[in-house]
């Protein structure tokens, strides 16, 4: 420290603005002394350590940007990061004093702004909210969010108005998305028939003969044994004959049983693209992991929404990937490993609740339709109605087999010499028929476009005839639906007016003035006059409604003239509530209560909150809130290295998310204290996670509440597999990344970004040095120490967990000798590496042995935990990050929650009932 007087003088010259800010403060609270004594050496008068100078701080706190630049100064002083520990240290009192002084000053300025302009910057719907809102309005399960550009986030949240931008790209995308939403909602055809198909791997949906050698499956008398997961197994090519003909609800029934396994095995049912070259460009949609737990055939049922053009896939995804050697021995016959026998899969649908579909009623209800003559839709699954040309079921094809031979013996029994001969003979006969088809001398039952038209164009791996002889329709065109009807309104203009005026208050989530409504009607009328079709004119109107600021922006953040400017009205409250708990627009009940001005009444609001949390739409809240708060939306971002972590598979992946979501759901339902987020004596896990965590057996794929043994490392969100996965990169873990994450997301005390030019700590993949050892320098280097003393401890404690959330005592390193070696299936490709040391010390010197002790330390401060949760809920629900100005209101929420023992549902109630929830 140089001469103190000199510094004050420098400040007087250089910090005129700063002094202005603080000059009105009482002498004892004057931050000037503090800033000049402890900060100016490095941050004033030409010195700009970390590229920050006190002179750059604005004196006028009126604009939000200016407040933003003061906030980090306050935070760094408050959290003890500044001044650095090798510089002169203020006393605790001095620090408290300056923090108080800065806070009150900043808070006063912010409050002034809030009363004048509101707390929340005008906020548009994010992509999810847009999709859910349209889905709920059009009563159709829409798929349009992907058509919109990715939303920017603030503190991980994509609900913050200030960061949700609009651009011309965005506007054009809205128009495309609205067209897509209308397309998905209406259907101008005759009511489609419900069809039921029973698909069997042994019948007309046989598997490709090409794969027969290596394919981890074995045809048995009543079905097909599947011995491996999807990867490399070509199970996904198996059901390729059936394409979902229409968007809608379907019922799928699967009859299956376990083979060679006392343990249950998950049989994954998913939808996606077609064929063995299925691209990831077609969204893979998990329908359900069916739990096959019996060696007796059992029928499992799934009902839900399927999309037109999707194909169904079924595979035991918990089994390791496996291929059998291509040696002509057909070793599958001798295989005694675990598997699932699939007898058949039955698809029934579309199951229609109404026709025309609900969305069409909303958009065009009551408009007369006329048939378009001469157009008929073909059935994309027509080939399933006729017997295949060459039946796969050997019982149907006696003529293919030499007399006296039992084909089942060949397929199910051990291969003897005779059987091998027969198999060869059979495949030659089959080939002959194929050749005849290709030569045009033999007509197949149905034209097979991509096969017959240009066989020489077929790339390697293209559809070859199946086992049964019928090709799999790999590149089957997307089933198009031709319109067989057109709208024919009796009085186009009157219909347009009726429909538009009906839509407006629903879309805008508030009553719409007659004059405003007339403008939208006029737009549609103009296009009717121009002579475009009724539908086209209506689409123009709907696009104007759904791109209008009244739809796209949260009205609570738009001005509502002539009302109390400091409190949002009941319509805006209904909207804020429904986007909070449903991620979507208010329903009729909320709208009604808003119209009656009753929603803001304490008891009514409480009752509605309860109703909304019970409603299945609240799943969206749990999913999206955790997705943003805990980064669970990023769960697909990394793929764990299967050489290191062979435990990882789609079932584990799903179970992880399911755990975190059901945990939070459980805290809400039981109103359990918020400290459970840090440390709980129970977990919500399913059968798979119980195994993964090494806990006693749990039945089924659905999570159960399981009490933890006393010494368990689990309990709380930090040690949930999903969290451990999103905070790792798939190959290794970094205490710094996890530490920063815990500070920001769990403790609510984020750490500033590293100074410029500091390289990331790189894990040594050969395993010679642990990351822990590399971190030691953080403690010795004072420049690093001030932040890393806070960052590293939680990160180090979490080193006991690998990237897939498994507890570890040693790191794993790749066994280089086995990498790249093909078909080493049953041997781990990793070796045990150095031991994990998860003990460390906190910045205040407290030591801990492992994550359990660290959790115990954190869990003591219920106040801090609740504060963090309240803060996250407020950012998510109101769409603005919290500031110093919000502190007293946040304190009130916490105090009220304390009366309810910090129960999570109570906290949600107190947030909703709080003053902050009502500020525009």
């Amino acid at each position, binding site marked *: 420290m140089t001469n103190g007087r000199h510094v004050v003088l420098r400040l007087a010259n250089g910090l005129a603005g700063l002094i202005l800010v603080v000059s009105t403060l009482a002498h004892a609270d004057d931050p000037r002394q503090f800033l000049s004594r402890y900060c100016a050496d490095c941050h004033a008068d030409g010195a700009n350590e970390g590229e920050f100078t006190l002179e750059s701080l604005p004196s006028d706190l009126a604009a*939000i940007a200016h407040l933003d630049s003061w906030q980090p100064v306050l935070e760094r002083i408050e959290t003890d990061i500044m001044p650095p520990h090798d510089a002169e240290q203020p006393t605790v009192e001095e620090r408290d004093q300056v923090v108080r002084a800065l806070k009150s000053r900043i808070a006063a300025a912010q409050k002034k702004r809030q009363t004048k302009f509101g707390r929340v910057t005008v906020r548009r719907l994010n992509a999810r909210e847009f999709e859910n809102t349209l889905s709920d309005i059009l009563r159709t399960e829409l798929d349009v969010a992907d058509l919109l550009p990715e939303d920017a986030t*603030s503190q991980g949240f994509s609900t913050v108005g200030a960061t949700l931008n609009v651009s011309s790209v965005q506007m054009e995308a809205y128009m495309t998305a609205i067209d897509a939403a209308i397309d998905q909602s209406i259907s101008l055809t005759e009511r489609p028939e419900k069809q039921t198909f029973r698909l069997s791997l042994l019948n007309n949906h046989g598997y490709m003969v090409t794969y027969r050698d290596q394919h981890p499956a074995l045809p048995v008398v009543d079905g097909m044994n599947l011995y491996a997961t999807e990867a490399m197994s070509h199970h996904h090519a198996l059901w390729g004959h059936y394409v979902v003909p229409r968007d809608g609800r379907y019922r799928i029934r699967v009859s299956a049983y376990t083979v060679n396994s006392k343990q249950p095995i998950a049989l994954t049912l998913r939808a996606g693209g077609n064929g063995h070259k299925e691209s990831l460009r077609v969204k893979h949609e998990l329908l359900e992991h069916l739990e096959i737990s019996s060696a007796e055939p059992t029928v499992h049922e799934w009902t839900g929404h399927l999309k037109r053009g999707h194909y169904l896939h079924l595979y035991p995804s918990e089994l390791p990937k496996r291929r059998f050697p291509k040696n002509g021995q057909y070793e599958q016959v001798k295989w005694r490993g675990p598997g699932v026998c699939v007898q058949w899969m039955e698809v029934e649908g579309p199951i229609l609740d109404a026709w025309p579909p609900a969305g069409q009623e909303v958009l065009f209800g009551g408009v007369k339709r006329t048939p378009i003559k001469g157009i008929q839709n073909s059935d994309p699954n027509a080939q399933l109605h006729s017997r295949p040309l060459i039946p796969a079921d050997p019982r149907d094809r006696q003529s293919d087999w030499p007399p006296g031979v039992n084909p089942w013996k060949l397929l199910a029994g051990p291969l003897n010499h005779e059987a091998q001969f027969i198999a060869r003979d059979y495949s030659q006969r089959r080939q002959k028929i194929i050749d005849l088809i290709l030569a045009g001398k033999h007509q197949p039952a149905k034209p097979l476009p991509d096969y017959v038209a240009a066989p020489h164009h077929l790339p390697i791996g293209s559809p070859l005839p199946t086992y049964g002889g019928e090709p799999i329709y790999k590149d089957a065109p997307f089933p198009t639906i031709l319109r067989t009807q057109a709208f024919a309104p009796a009085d186009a203009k009157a219909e347009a007016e009726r429909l538009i005026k009906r839509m407006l208050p629903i879309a805008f989530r508030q009553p719409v003035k007659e004059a405003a409504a007339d403008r939208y009607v006029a737009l549609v009328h103009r296009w009717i006059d121009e002579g475009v079709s009724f539908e086209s004119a209506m689409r123009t109107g709907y696009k104007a409604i759904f791109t209008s600021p009244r739809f796209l922006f949260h009205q609570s953040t738009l001005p509502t003239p002539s009302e109390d400017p400091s409190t949002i009205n009941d319509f805006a409250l209904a909207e804020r509530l429904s986007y909070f708990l449903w991620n979507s627009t208010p329903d009729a009940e909320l709208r009604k209560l808003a119209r009656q001005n009753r929603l803001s009444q304490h008891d009514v609001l409480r009752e509605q909150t309860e109703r909304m949390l019970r409603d299945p739409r609240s799943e969206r809240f749990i999913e999206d809130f955790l997705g943003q708060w805990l980064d669970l939306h990023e769960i697909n971002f990394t*793929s764990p290295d299967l050489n290191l972590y062979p435990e990882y598979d789609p079932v584990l992946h799903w179970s992880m998310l399911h755990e975190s979501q059901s945990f939070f759901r459980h805290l809400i339902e039981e109103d359990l204290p918020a400290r459970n987020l840090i440390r709980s004596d129970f977990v919500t896990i399913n059968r798979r996670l119980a195994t993964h965590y090494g806990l006693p057996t749990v039945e089924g794929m659905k999570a159960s509440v399981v009490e933890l043994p006393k010494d368990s490392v689990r309990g709380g969100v930090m040690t949930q597999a999903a969290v451990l996965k999103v905070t790792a990169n798939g190959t290794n873990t970094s205490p710094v990344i996890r530490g920063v994450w815990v500070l920001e997301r769990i403790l609510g005390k984020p750490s500033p970004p590293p100074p410029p030019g500091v390289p990331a700590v790189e894990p040594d993949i050969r395993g010679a040095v642990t990351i822990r050892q590399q971190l030691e320098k953080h403690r010795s280097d004072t420049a690093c120490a001030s932040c890393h003393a806070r960052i590293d401890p939680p990160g180090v404690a979490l080193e006991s967990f690998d990237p897939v959330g498994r507890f570890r005592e040693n790191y794993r390193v790749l066994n280089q000798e086995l990498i790249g070696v093909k078909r080493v299936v049953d041997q781990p490709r990793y070796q045990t590496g150095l031991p994990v040391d998860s003990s460390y010390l906190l910045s205040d010197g407290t030591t801990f042995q492992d994550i359990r002790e660290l959790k115990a330390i954190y869990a003591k401060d219920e106040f801090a935990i609740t504060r963090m949760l309240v803060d996250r809920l407020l950012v998510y629900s109101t769409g603005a990050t919290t500031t110093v100005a919000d502190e007293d209101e946040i304190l009130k929420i916490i105090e009220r929650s304390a009366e309810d023992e910090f129960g999570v549902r109570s906290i949600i109630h107190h947030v909703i009932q709080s003053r902050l929830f009502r500020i525009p």
Partner: protein
Amino acid sequence: MTRIHQKPMTTHRRQMLRGAGVALALPWLPSLRRKPAVADERRLLPESDGKPRRMVFICNNLGLHMPNFVPSDSGFGYTASPYLRVLDELRDKYTVFSGTSHPHVDGGHAAEKSFLTAVPHPGSGSFRNSISVDQLVAEQVGNRTRIPSLVLSANGGGSLSWTRGGVPIPGETSPSRVFRRLFTPGSPEEVKQQVTRLRQGASVMDMVLGEAKRLKKSLSRDDRDKFEEYTTSVRQVEREMVRRQQWEKQPKPRVDQPVPVDIRDQADTIGTSKLMYELIALALQTDSTRIASVLSVGFFAVPPIEGVTEGYHTLSHHGLAKDKLAQLAVIEKEHLGILRDFLFKLESTTEEEDTLLDRTMVLFGSDLGNASSHNNTNLPIVLAGGGFKHGQHLAFDQANNEPLSNLYVTMLQRMGLPVERFGSSTGRIRGLEA
């Protein structure tokens, strides 16, 4: 300045013509407004010679293994590195850079967001992006061509291009769709329908703009700034729809090449990138656009390339394992191979006294300097074409990198834009002369 559109492009290498697949007999598409690229009153900057220029930006988001890429010596007589040997036939047509990066752009893979914007800390929670260099140019010259710029993504979502407000522009992923939009002529009926659709769109935007204006009056200042983004966007879309109506009525350029077949296999990054490059070449040759960006996304799956048995992304985290490095080199050489083919294609077309490559700046690089450790410094960068004095290895300080934005400034000026600064630039890039 108007002469640029008068003459058809000719070719000086017949065999290349077939590859390019352009019906060269057709004259240039007449420009709607015969104005120079930038407003008349602009100052001609040192880098600009007033010729019409194009820009192509390519980013391979999994990087290149630098020991195989960076030449061991610098200057004009540098020894080609293993990777650059692939491009060696074109040695005097490109410059290779080492020791450049964007200051404070970190965050591993997140850095691809800042590759063309240079905005710091793309991985941080409070990151807000800004306009990308290609869009900055498109704002200036984009209205001269059928489409202002081509924003492409070879594999998967995302792109390199960002709007002024920091909104990502979704990359077009289907070569066939772009091809149809640019080159497949519509029937008179289709054209009429399309024009009506655009007029309807414009009328929607007009309507909405009116609503927005009514609301705006009563907004606070911060809200108004935010809301201004919305009204500006609406206005832009309206104008764009009017502009497109004009282009809709202009016949599309004819190319004697079939519609490309989209590659469905997402693992085939190289194949899709190649299709994208071919598309860009066609678009430039027909002056359908002058700006293009391609984000080439390496995928987890095993690419269909002889000698590669592991996923591309996995290989990029090679940890110096020999087997992985060998496979990685196979893929990365393929990347440079398709770049070479692309450059040749541009070199084989001429415009006036120059080749199209001379008038097209092709920047190829990555946001990762070391993909294995997710490091974002010392990026691999190649700049080809644009009429610079090429043929050297410009080696900047490995420890104290030259801002990549300096190269962007040089390119912007070469483009004719009166721009002195971009991103984190400190000036023009040293050592690269026109």
